[in-house]
């Protein structure tokens, strides 16, 4: 059983704080929560909303029908009241509408009584919590963590007042113990990086990637990490490469446009063989695109980022939990192969909050692959020593007496010196490309969900994992033979499972948040498998499980399969 609520209003009306109070309260009641943000690229005005879904089982995506809506403005009423379920309730201040099918209250008067006009929304939250029978004292603990002094008192008064104004109508099965955490995709990336020992993060703010940097910055003093806001993304990647060369784990990140500026630096990481982890939190492009919306339009660009040919790894992130572990893994892979590893996320995952089991920090390992004196031959160090594996021993500048480390963006010999030799060029290209072969062994196959050997195979990557997972469950309940492959590691492209399931399936439906089915093109290119149908959405809004479910039903109805 799960419920779904929406809080809508103009930017600046505080819906972020209100939904946060709701989310944290529900979570602390032992419920599973999933929240999704829809916001505009402006600081005041406009229309923003947050959807919060909750229940007694893990939730992986948002839904489109609501049990309750808090409307802080008229726009919310006009845009969303039609999405209320028949039993759904719309909560608002009576000055917005006095339609008596709504739950309208004089929140303004309540706020006045509490001594702070800004707590109007908190009173509405009180009403909402009462509708669902959520214990009031839990919400107090959340307010207690958020506010201090007079502001705290006003908020507590307001939530209590709201609570006493309504009657419970829904029966939420409250959990008993609250072990879980509630975290967003970007926070999970940041936490994964800190666990992995990142010591240097350079970045330039760009929605929706910024909060990765913000969370690391918050912990920087405690964890001893330097976070530098740089002049541009070109500086960001070049600084991170300098830090990594000098011996620490370094990271940078951005969204599409900023990542575009980093591309020459990715190529530099390629030829200099400096390990680096980069996150690309996608938003719709081209150029500045749709700044606060979601899309999966950059996959092929990311895979091909950097001029010339060199190995890199691209990992797409499915969920906050996946983001945490994969970020930590990315650092080990970058260090092991001395390559750039790019983590691909998007606004949906970045901003969505999800209840998950606490991350297991004992599962995070730190494998640096750094050498010392033993890397010298007769007292001499070759940074680009030609080896069987293509991986050269890496030492840290200044750490081995008598040895110096030279890296070079030009083609170079084993010592790192510029070369014009065709023979050395071929050897160095081969050396780097050997690592690509090893990487292919390292790659994790996509996650399979659903019926074994299904007639209908759904393919997807990254953050569509949640909606697809839930859609598969709905389709299985209808008795359909359906399964899905959710790609995480995506470059080098893993081919085993797609070949196995793809050959067997009667229909392959590729599901992506873009217009050109980029995953499908990779399947064709690398595994000679192609999708029969596509569910593509590129209006900047994430597809829900319901959306996928309905499209699959339509497609299978019109085919002879079902």
């Amino acid at each position, binding site marked *: 059983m799960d419920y779904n609520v929406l809080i809508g209003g103009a930017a600046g009306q505080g819906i972020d704080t209100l939904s946060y109070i709701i989310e944290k309260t529900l979570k602390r009641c032992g419920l599973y929560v999933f929240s999704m943000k829809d916001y505009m690229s402006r600081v005041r005005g406009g229309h923003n909303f947050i959807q919060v879904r909750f229940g007694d089982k893990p939730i992986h995506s948002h839904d489109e029908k609501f049990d309750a809506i808090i409307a802080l403005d008229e726009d919310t009423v006009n845009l969303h009241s039609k999405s209320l379920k028949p039993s759904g309730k719309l909560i608002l201040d009576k000055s917005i509408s006095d339609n008596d099918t709504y739950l309208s209250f004089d929140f303004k008067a309540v706020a006045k009584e509490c001594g702070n006009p800004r707590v109007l929304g908190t009173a509405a939250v009180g009403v909402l919590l009462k509708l669902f029978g959520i214990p009031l004292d839990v919400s107090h603990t959340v307010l207690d963590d958020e506010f201090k002094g007079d502001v705290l008192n006003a908020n507590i008064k307001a939530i209590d007042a709201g609570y006493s104004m309504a009657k419970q109508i829904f029966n939420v099965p409250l959990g008993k113990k*609250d072990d*879980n*955490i*509630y*975290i967003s995709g970007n926070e999970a990336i940041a*936490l994964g990086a*800190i*666990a*992995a*020992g990142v*010591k*240097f993060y*350079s970045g330039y703010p760009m929605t929706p990637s910024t909060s990765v940097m913000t969370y690391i910055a918050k912990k920087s*003093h405690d*964890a*001893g990490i*330097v976070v*530098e806001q*740089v*002049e*541009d993304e*070109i*500086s*960001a990647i*070049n*600084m*991170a*490469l*300098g*830090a990594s*060369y*000098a*011996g*620490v784990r*370094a990271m940078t990140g951005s969204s599409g446009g900023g990542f575009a500026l980093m591309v020459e630096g990715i190529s*530099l990481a390629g030829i*200099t063989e400096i390990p680096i982890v980069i996150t690309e939190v996608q938003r719709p492009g081209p150029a500045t695109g749709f700044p606060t919306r979601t899309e999966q339009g950059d996959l092929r660009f990311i895979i091909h980022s950097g001029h010339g040919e060199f190995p890199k790894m691209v990992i797409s992130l499915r969920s906050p939990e996946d983001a945490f572990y994969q970020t*930590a893994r990315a650092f080990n892979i970058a260090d092991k192969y001395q390559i750039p590893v790019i983590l691909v996320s998007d606004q949906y995952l970045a901003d969505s909050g999800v209840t998950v089991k606490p*991350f297991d*920090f*004992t599962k*995070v*390992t*730190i494998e640096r692959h750094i050498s010392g004196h033993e890397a010298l031959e007769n007292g001499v160090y070759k940074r680009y020593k030609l080896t069987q594996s293509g991986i050269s021993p890496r030492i*840290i*500048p*200044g750490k081995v*007496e*008598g*040895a*110096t*480390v*030279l*890296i*070079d*963006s*030009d083609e170079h010999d084993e010592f*790192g*010196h*510029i070369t014009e030799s065709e023979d050395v060029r071929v050897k160095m290209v081969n050396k780097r490309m050997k690592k690509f072969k090893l990487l292919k062994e390292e790659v994790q196959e996509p996650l399979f969900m659903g019926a074994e050997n299904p007639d209908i195979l759904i393919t997807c990557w990254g953050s569509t994992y949640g909606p697809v997972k839930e859609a598969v469950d709905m389709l299985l309940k209808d008795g359909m033979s359906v399964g899905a492959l959710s790609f995480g590691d995506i470059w080098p492209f893993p081919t085993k499972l797609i070949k196995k399931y793809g050959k067997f399936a009667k229909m392959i439906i590729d599901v992506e948040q873009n217009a050109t089915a980029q995953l499908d093109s990779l399947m064709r290119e690398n595994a000679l498998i192609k999708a029969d149908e596509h569910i593509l959405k590129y209006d900047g809004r994430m597809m829900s499980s319901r959306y996928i479910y309905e499209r699959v039903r339509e497609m299978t109805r019109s085919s002879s399969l079902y």
Partner: protein
Amino acid sequence: MNTAFETYETAWCPGCGNFGILNALKDALTELGLKPHQVVIASGIGQAAKMPHYINVNGFNGLHGRALPPATAINIVNKDLKVIIDSGDGDTYGEGGNHFIHAIRRNANIAHFVHDNQIYGLTKGQASPTTAKGQKTSLQFDGVILDPVKPIKLALTMGAGFVARSFSGNYEHLKKMMKEAIMYDGYALLDIFQPCVTFNKVNTFKWYNDRVYELPDDYDYTDLDNAFKVADEWGDRIPIGIIYKVEKPTYIDNISFLKDGPPLVDAKLDPMMAEKYLDDFR
């Protein structure tokens, strides 16, 4: 003079002003008692930027215009290393102009040597940001129509704590300036006149020799107003020497765990130390 900083075969034209800079640098490092593994030279792309290949120290020969960001990070990550940048005027003031401005603000501990030949050498003679207005080049056939960048003045305006100029044709002076810049705590700009004998037929050894003069011993380099006046001197007489020098907190001074703790590169990594942050999400 020494073998620790042995040089390698270079790809510079015979007679190039870069040789004077290489010789002075080798000797400056030796006289400062530094060992090769304690020094890093970062550079961009260009003739000047090939320096890390011609001297035995740690080297980060990165991208055109991008020497400053990695150099800054190298200093932040390992304060025990002496970080030097050797790069051209195009690299520094053109492609890397934005980094130049912000590197001064960061004030990391870097000695930045700009080989200012007032031309693009490696790409064969196009104008650089410091090429004189009106000068004809292999690309600006009718002469440069833009006003040149004034590196010294720009650095002063941005608040750099160490701003100096020298000349590749004056070994003793150059070596002294290099040592001063390397020993300075913070970002130190040393703009070095470096004749490009192949592509710049105007700013030759003779042209500089006829004009440069050393700032007198009693010149007060802590006086900013004076420094601005000196920075504006250009034409028949061009001053070389420390134009401005004051003490300023460095990037590292501003972050307590960097200042008081061991270098970041020596930090112990332990995933379990981050587990407590889970409380933020409960």
